[in-house]
């Protein structure tokens, strides 16, 4: 056990001990994204889907920040706004200290190669009429000073790196299995040597045995290419495996963020506790005696969120103030953030 821990500590800066020293790559303050709801012939705005509601966090250079939460909680939107694929409604996001939300299209284009995204569905995110070689080579055309031969060489290099045969460069996406298609998506994302990659549910559409292959690949690439990941997933066990720190989202809000072991061993927010306990453990002996926190009801609609704490309608520990005041996002112990009235400030 101890040797294992020190080994990983050598490879990656461990987030728990590094919140002061670690270099911040991405910094987010009160980031908000509302999607207008329009009705009628005049497309009048009648409301808004509050997809992301004032989230604040940092991503450290070289780490994997896991982002978990149920569907509709705003994970993808957070990732897309970070990469400026969607415009923020309010708040700030910086990359190496440069503000992204107000950046001109020209400046953004220069920065794009350094921030990439891997999508959930390798099926719909790859153009079926393009060969693998042109899919992976496309970003090189736009951004790198390579001639056709140079691009070809780089594509072959990339395919090898992600575990595909360079000889298959002229095939089309449908000729590959789901896992291989995801490798193509990964190759395209790393083509321009990015620093930061948002992995949005990269394994959700894959079979169990293939998920492990892709996660192993992402971990290998992170080490070899010094990548920083935002790893979005609803699979809490896989996030526990891959992440250094983990943030939990609910109805557009961050409700908790901590170093991975701290978050799973000592979850403070009632939602994190429930989410954690809802995940079935692949061990009949443990399952036979495990007690679950079963939440009542469904997640409210982000078009019509409850007042006060977003979780108050399902929270087993709800108090009066939770229905009135949205709890502050605060650091209760070093590196452990939570937004909950009920959590006592810890003295340490």
């Amino acid at each position, binding site marked *: 056990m101890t040797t294992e821990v020190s080994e990983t500590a050598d490879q990656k800066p461990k987030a728990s001990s590094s919140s002061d020293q670690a270099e911040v790559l991405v910094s987010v303050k009160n980031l908000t994204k509302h999607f207008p709801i329009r009705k009628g012939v005049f497309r009048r705005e009648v409301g808004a889907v509050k997809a992301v509601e004032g989230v604040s966090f940092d991503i450290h250079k070289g780490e994997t920040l896991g982002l978990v939460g149920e569907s509709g909680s705003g994970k993808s939107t957070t990732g897309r706004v970070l990469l400026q694929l969607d415009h923020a409604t309010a708040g700030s996001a910086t990359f190496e200290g440069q503000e992204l939300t107000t950046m001109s299209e020209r400046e953004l284009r220069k920065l794009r190669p350094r921030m990439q995204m891997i999508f959930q569905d390798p099926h719909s995110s790859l153009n079926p009429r393009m060969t693998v070689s042109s899919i992976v080579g496309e970003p090189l055309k736009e951004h790198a000073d390579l001639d056709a031969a140079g691009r070809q060489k780089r594509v072959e290099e990339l395919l090898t790196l992600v575990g595909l045969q360079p000889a298959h460069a002229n095939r089309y996406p449908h000729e590959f299995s789901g896992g*291989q298609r995801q490798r193509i998506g990964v190759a395209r994302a790393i083509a321009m040597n990015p620093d930061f990659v948002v992995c949005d549910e990269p394994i959700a559409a894959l079979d169990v045995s293939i*998920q492990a292959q892709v996660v192993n690949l992402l971990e290998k690439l992170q080490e070899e290419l010094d990548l920083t990941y935002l790893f979005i997933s609803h699979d809490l*066990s896989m996030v526990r495996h891959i992440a250094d720190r983990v943030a939990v989202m609910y109805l557009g809000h961050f409700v908790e963020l901590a170093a991975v072991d701290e978050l799973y061993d000592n979850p403070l927010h009632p939602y994190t506790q429930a989410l954690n306990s809802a995940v*079935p453990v*692949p061990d*009949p002996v443990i399952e036979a005696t495990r007690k679950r926190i079963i939440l009542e009801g469904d997640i409210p609609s982000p078009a019509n969120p409850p007042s006060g704490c977003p979780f108050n309608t399902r929270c087993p520990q709800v108090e009066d103030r939770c229905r009135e005041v949205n709890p502050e996002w605060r650091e209760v112990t070093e590196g452990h953030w939570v937004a909950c009235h009920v959590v006592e400030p810890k003295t340490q």
Partner: protein
Amino acid sequence: MRGAYLSGKDAVLEVSDLSTEFHTPDGVVHAVNGVSFALRSGEFLAVVGESGSGKSVTMMSMLKLIPMPPGKIVAGKVMFDHQDLLELETSQLRKVRGGEIGFIFQDPMTSLNPVLTIGRQITESLELHTDLSGDAVNDRAEELLTMVGLPDARARLKSYPHELSGGMRQRVMIAIALACSPKVIVADEPTTALDVTIQAQIIEIMKELRERLDTAVIWITHDLGVVAGLADRVIVMYGGKIVEEARVGDLYANPQHPYTRGLLGSIPRLDQKGQELSAIEGSPASIRAIPTSCSFAPRCDYAHDRCHTEVPVLREVGAEHMAACWWDIDGERPRL
């Protein structure tokens, strides 16, 4: 040969040598290749395996629910209530479906009728399969919705499917499946489309219902976590065949087929943090010809000559434990 432990009176449903093909423009897909298993009365049987391994087609074939054509059940027997379901007339089969054997599917939207109220869909089934009539039907419908934990059951009877959340719709599906006190419920990935806290609600309801009702359940899933807490026994499928079958504790503690080991190894474990996951290399291929070798051999670390020339038979490797593999994984030598 199948173990003797399951034959006879104990089994409520017995499938033998079931084979189903699909004749597509691209050729024949051998979706199910000689599947045999028995379901004991009241037991919870999980069927696991990757997508395309033949789980759904096996269960749909039992009640001739596959589209024919392109589908074709080419062999097999499905004994239920002293009769072979595959020999029944369509009208008789319709009575079994939704009556003595209930189905729950992954996506309730496709099996619920969008223009009928929830109440109407339950009472329709009750009228078709039971002797209840008049107020008794409505009372029973309300009772069923309460049983699956739908708040405000009476009011909910008047709701349409689209007015309910995914989790509530799945509860309604369970209520409909339970409506006629079936002997068997087949649930095909019923929680796969749901969020984890909603999945936990559904699992909890299934556990409660198991205690209260004497219904045997076949639960299809690809999630070995869900299986661990629910099942009595587990069947593992690969390439349209059963490759392993065991009591749930034995399967996790002592998996005998390399594929089962691989699946369990692919799941991240706490004590392996910071290590590579032990992934199974390659990916499953669809079965284009009647297998003449082990379908898993191309991905298997233990494959040897025989695996490429002879289909392994499913046989007893321990107490109530069967595996189809030419390699003795504990003895570290080929099986004879």
